């Protein structure tokens, strides 16, 4: 453990993906995504699994910025995803605008709601923030049912128009591929954002808010920006699911999803946004596609979260990374010896 292995310095000027910030994660993520898409093929069920995983991943990625980078756990993400979904539903049903507009309007509205909620709860953190945002999520569902003229009430909105991108209508498979691409792009960008100066400030806010404040950044304001960014990403996910499923109801995005989204990065690994993606894939696999435990996939997931939290706090990605480092060290030792 304590022995440090001196790496041979890479001094070549050749282009090396490892030298692009976040490049390694992207390469791995794209590779896995490509494998998954090949596995999916034209199987409708597997395609739906990918859509579900992408939706979960986007909600988890949305939570990543405020929750794992800034350290404040807001649980209103069912509402943000719902706003993204209802944007798709409403623009399809009530307006003649191109459907793509929904992916602009939805995230913006979600961000505005997040800003308002963030301002109201700016003094709260930890348990208090979690409780208020949870109550907000519940109240939002009640509002969707009550505000029938806006939301279509309990029946929700359905019969969505197909997307039309400059005359090209993507097939269901295209949507599946597109969702994988969107997840990869967002995870990659977040990974880079994490390493950037912005990410450094936000991550410092988690452990040392006083230092950030003393360095000239208003912590409450930056917190709200982080929340808004997260809400936008979750809204993209909500819109994606609604489009792929063809409808949305007030019950579509429940507290259950919020809980899953809290655990996904823990399962996958909190160190990088790719961990949230990995966690989403695992969660979907366990709850939807695990033949042995149809009725208890969620239970297995819950137990798994506890075990991972205690045994491998860095999650699957962190664990794999550790294994990889050890393996390479071992290989290098072998090579040096031989």
């Amino acid at each position, binding site marked *: 453990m304590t022995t440090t292995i001196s790496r041979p310095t890479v001094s070549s000027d050749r282009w090396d993906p490892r030298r692009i910030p976040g490049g390694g994660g992207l390469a791995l993520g794209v590779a896995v995504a490509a494998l998954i898409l090949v596995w999916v093929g034209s199987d409708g069920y597997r395609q739906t699994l990918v859509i579900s995983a992408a939706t979960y991943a986007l909600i988890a990625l949305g939570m990543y910025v405020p929750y794992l980078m800034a350290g404040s756990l807001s649980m209103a993400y069912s509402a943000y995803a719902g706003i993204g979904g209802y944007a798709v539903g409403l623009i399809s049903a009530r307006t003649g605008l191109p459907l793509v507009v929904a992916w602009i309007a939805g995230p913006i509205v979600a961000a505005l709601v997040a800003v308002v909620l963030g301002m109201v709860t700016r003094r709260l953190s930890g348990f208090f923030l979690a409780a208020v945002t949870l109550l907000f999520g519940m109240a939002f569902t009640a509002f969707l049912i009550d505000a029938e003229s806006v939301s279509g009430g309990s029946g929700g909105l359905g*019969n969505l128009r197909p997307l039309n991108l400059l005359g090209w209508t993507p097939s269901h498979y295209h949507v599946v591929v597109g969702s994988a691409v969107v997840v990869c792009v967002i995870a990659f960008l977040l990974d880079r954002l994490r390493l950037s100066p912005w990410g450094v400030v936000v991550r410092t806010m988690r452990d040392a808010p006083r230092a950030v404040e003393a360095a000239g950044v208003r912590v409450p304001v930056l917190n709200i920006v982080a929340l808004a960014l997260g809400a936008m990403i979750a809204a993209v996910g909500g819109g994606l699911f609604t489009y792929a*499923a063809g409808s949305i109801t*007030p019950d579509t995005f429940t507290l259950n999803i919020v809980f899953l989204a809290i655990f996904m990065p823990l399962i996958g690994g909190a160190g990088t946004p790719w961990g949230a993606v990995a966690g989403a894939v695992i969660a979907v696999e366990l709850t939807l596609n695990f033949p042995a435990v*149809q*009725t*208890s996939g969620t239970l297995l997931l819950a137990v798994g979260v*506890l075990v991972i939290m205690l045994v491998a706090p860095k999650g699957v990605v962190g664990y794999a990374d550790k294994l990889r480092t050890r393996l390479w060290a071992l290989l290098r030792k072998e090579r040096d010896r031989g």
Partner: protein
Amino acid sequence: MARWVAGMATLALAVTACGGTGDDADSPTDGSAKGAPIIIGMDEDSTGPGASYSTIAGKTIRLAVQDINDKGGVLGRPLRLVIENDESDPTKVPAVLQKLHSQGAKALFLQSGSAAVMQAKSTLTQLGLPAIAPTGVTATLVEPPDNELIYMLANTTTDWAEVYCGAFKAANINTLGILTDDTTTIAALNKALLGGMSCVKITATEKGAANASDLSAQVARLKDANPDAVLVTSVGGAFEVLAQNTLAAQLKDKLRFSLASIGNQPSSWKLANPGALEGLIFMGSINQDNPRTKALTELLKKANGPDYEVTAYDAEGWDAVQLLKLAIEKAGGPDDPKKLNEAIQSISGYQASFGQGNFTLSFSATKHLGADGPCGLSLIEFGADNRPKGPWATFQPPCSS
């Protein structure tokens, strides 16, 4: 720590094992039928909030499939059920239906208990698979959009409104108070049902959370509004019982009506305070004068024990399987979904095992609701023992015999 982890791992394994065996044991066998099995998918909510009612019909559907297989199957081929659980989670519904499809299902039973099933409609259109929602009562489920492939059996809320109106007239009820839960399922139902009841003046509508632990405020408001009678609309379960308990305590002298759910959930009768259900009138569908109901009752008592209370959910589940069998036979096989869909639409005059003796189910391209007239309904009164006593003497839906 290591020991703890080992314990957790063992636990997880145990859970996995139980889950696996549990599912297999429930599945019907091929019976005496030979040939390639016909695969039917079922979306059942076996663990989510809707599980308490979803599983009642699910059990009888399995029994019906077993019964058909034992008698030689459909066109000589056994029916085989593939079952997936959506946990009443709408985000899971598309994946569940897709999964059933990928397992080779030719037709589906949508047996998820909640509004989650609304999320299924557009997926069905994508898949092109016909589906029956055996216990569905929300008319919007079979209304456009995306309704070409979905069917329901029981009388819907439109018929209910008619029956209630008859009852209110007979009992001289002019004003009505509503006590309702906050689920999306019921909100949709209320919209259809209350919209159709122009015969009474609704003087108060009180809503409580489906998981409420107290409804005395809502009931006190009803008391203040002082309607002639109270109608409770809920998905049933704990809310319905709490509502009836509270009404029985605070509004003793008012006539109480309810939907079908309370009658279909025998397990929840025990939840009620002693005598709290007495005098409650619910929209029943089980009528022992119907010979097919009688036969089904015997069969179910044999399978589930002599204390088994037959509910409309049982009968609807049973009939859904029989209808599908009929359709497959008419279509000459299960493999062409379009033909199968048309075959369902050609079914007419099927004698149901619920409702009154001459109640039939018919379908057509424009009629996706099976029930022919309100004869499938019957107003049933609860007795002092918190069990259904029998038809309400004051009014029964007219039934041309």
